[in-house]
């Protein structure tokens, strides 16, 4: 009886939060569901394990850029050059490995470091000189594009043959390892949640969110189990020749980034300061927070993530070209972050939003291509979805301030 009341109460709390405009990831989850149902009813390829694995590798690079962008968007700033920062760092990675014969474990940290330095430069201009980030990153967008062109030389591409870098997007964890990976991840998630509740109880703080958390965790774990099951099915057309089973290596890479970034944002004072600066910079300054350093660090993190995305691009294309990270990459990444529920006004958003949004963008891209729609329609639909989520954000802000 009393249990029912607590579930009911937490559901009602949650409903009132939604009504008050704190919709969170709900629209993105609903959107993803609707899209998946629509595409699988129209195409018999969409819901196959092969396409699912394909979808994940398609979404990977943009998702990683979007995860980094969340840090900048939380401040109410933007980084338009993150796409080409990925390109530049990818080019440095390829040049170091292919032309200078460095090992991947030297080249990859070096390219990430260069990404961080690029971010520090942008951050300095924004935080110290107070030039609007839109203008600064518009300039660096052009500059990085030029830099990439100079590095790769016009019209050319540089191939990469390093097996480790190529494995990220082209190879899978063995089946047993896939299941071990799933069990470890799920176990760690459940344990960390239980530990949090135990600590709160020890401190004498009661809350009725436990049942809610149980439901959420059960759903997440079973979804993860289903995904692992789908990915461990043989998806090669010719299994005798080459077997394609297991979780793509890029998935654990993204998961590590997700856990790390979420930890920083939700468990450290730096993360709290980031939200505070995004919510009310003047209040943060008066509370003794070094607003300037917070701003610069956010841009450094964003470009660091872009460098990782550069590696993922390179791994997928087996090469770097002057257009890597160009065209609609950045816009898709911003779109992914916003669709997932990150606010362009700052102060609201999570790294996991970027993953949800990245999946939505990739599903539209993938599903419409399968159905044979021309690229023009694809862009227009993606634009429509972005507009929809931006309006949900705007409306939810209005709902939140109306009380």
């Amino acid at each position, binding site marked *: 009886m009393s249990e029912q009341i607590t579930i009911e109460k937490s559901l009602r709390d949650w409903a009132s939060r939604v009504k008050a405009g704190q919709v969170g990831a709900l629209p993105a989850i609903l959107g993803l569901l609707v899209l998946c149902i629509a595409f699988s009813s129209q195409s018999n390829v969409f819901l196959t394990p092969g396409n699912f694995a394909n979808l994940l590798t398609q979404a990977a690079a943009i998702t990683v850029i979007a995860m980094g962008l969340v840090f900048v968007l939380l401040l109410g700033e933007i980084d338009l050059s993150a796409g080409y920062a990925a390109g530049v760092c990818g080019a440095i990675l390829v040049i170091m490995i292919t032309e200078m014969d460095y090992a991947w474990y030297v080249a990859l940290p070096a390219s990430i470091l260069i990404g961080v330095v690029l971010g520090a430069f942008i951050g300095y201009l924004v935080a110290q000189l107070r030039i609007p980030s839109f203008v600064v990153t518009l300039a660096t967008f052009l500059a990085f594009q030029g830099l990439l062109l100079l590095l790769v030389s016009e019209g050319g591409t540089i191939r990469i043959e390093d097996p480790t870098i190529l494995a990220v997007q082209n190879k899978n964890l063995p089946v047993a390892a896939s299941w071990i990976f799933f069990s470890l991840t799920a176990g760690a998630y459940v344990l960390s949640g239980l530990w949090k509740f135990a600590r709160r109880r020890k401190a004498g703080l009661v809350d009725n969110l436990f049942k809610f958390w149980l439901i959420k965790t059960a759903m997440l774990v079973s979804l993860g189990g289903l995904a692992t099951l789908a990915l461990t099915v043989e998806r090669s057309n010719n299994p005798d020749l080459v077997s394609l089973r297991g979780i793509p290596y890029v998935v654990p890479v993204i998961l590590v980034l997700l856990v790390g970034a979420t930890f920083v944002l939700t468990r*450290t004072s730096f993360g709290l300061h980031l939200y505070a600066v995004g919510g009310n910079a003047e209040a943060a300054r008066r509370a003794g927070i070094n607003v300037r350093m917070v701003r610069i660090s956010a841009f450094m993190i964003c470009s660091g993530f872009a460098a990782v995305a550069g590696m993922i691009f390179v791994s997928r294309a087996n090469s770097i070209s002057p257009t890597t990270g160009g065209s609609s990459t950045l816009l898709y990444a911003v779109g992914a972050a916003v669709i997932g529920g990150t606010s362009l006004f700052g102060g609201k958003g999570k790294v996991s939003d970027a993953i949800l949004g990245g999946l939505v963008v990739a599903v539209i891209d993938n599903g419409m291509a399968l159905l044979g729609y021309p690229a023009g329609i694809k862009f227009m639909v993606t634009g429509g979805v972005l507009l929809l989520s931006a309006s949900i954000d705007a409306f939810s802000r209005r709902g939140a301030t109306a009380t």
Partner: protein
Amino acid sequence: MATPILSLRQVNKSFGPVHVLKDVNFDAYAGKVTALVGDNGAGKSTLIKCIAGIYTPETGEFLFEGNKVTIAGPRDATALGIEIVYQDLALCDNLDIVHNMFLGREEKSGVTLNESHMESLAKKTLDGLSVRTVKSIRQKVASLSGGQRQTVAIARAVLWNSKVVILDEPTAALGVAQTEQVLKLVRQLADNGLAVIVISHNLNDVFQVADNIAAMYLGTMAAQVDKKSVSPGDVVKLITTGKSEAVSGATK
């Protein structure tokens, strides 16, 4: 009267050619509410900012608990236990009550935030102020009413075992019921043993809550008097003309 916890003697402050504070004396007592009144431009905010360490006066003496101190910056003021609640409250709407109260001074265990410790401390502080109007201290400040926000800002100021709390126009933006609530809270602070300084334009509020009234007039301290010895009319005279027959020997 007992010795004041905070005492300013002959404080002068100018901005270029403008002499804003002229030989100002001011006292605040533990367990008492001192109201600082005066017309616009009388120097109330400048005086407060000198106490909070935002401005440094050219001449004058600061005595804190009887000892001479120098307040060179906001950190010095905080270290002494002086907290200020600004009129705009300086809260982050997108953070919850606990995070707002600890902003910039988070409790940590290792590198991670010690959320449960912060939450229990915040709860204890709010309970100590007899605040029972907020539903959950984990709700976002954006969803709070004006009076509740004021409460959170005040709770943040007293969280640090502060000794002097300065409130800048705490009721200016509030309705009748919420004003009542905040004034009760101000009284509670003083009853808990803090020295409370309240800037206010509203003489009703001042007479309801203050023990002591300091009236400023054109950069001078017209008088600092016991509330019981004056009428609202006398205070209005002090604010508008700088003197009043009822206050003997207070004017300079």
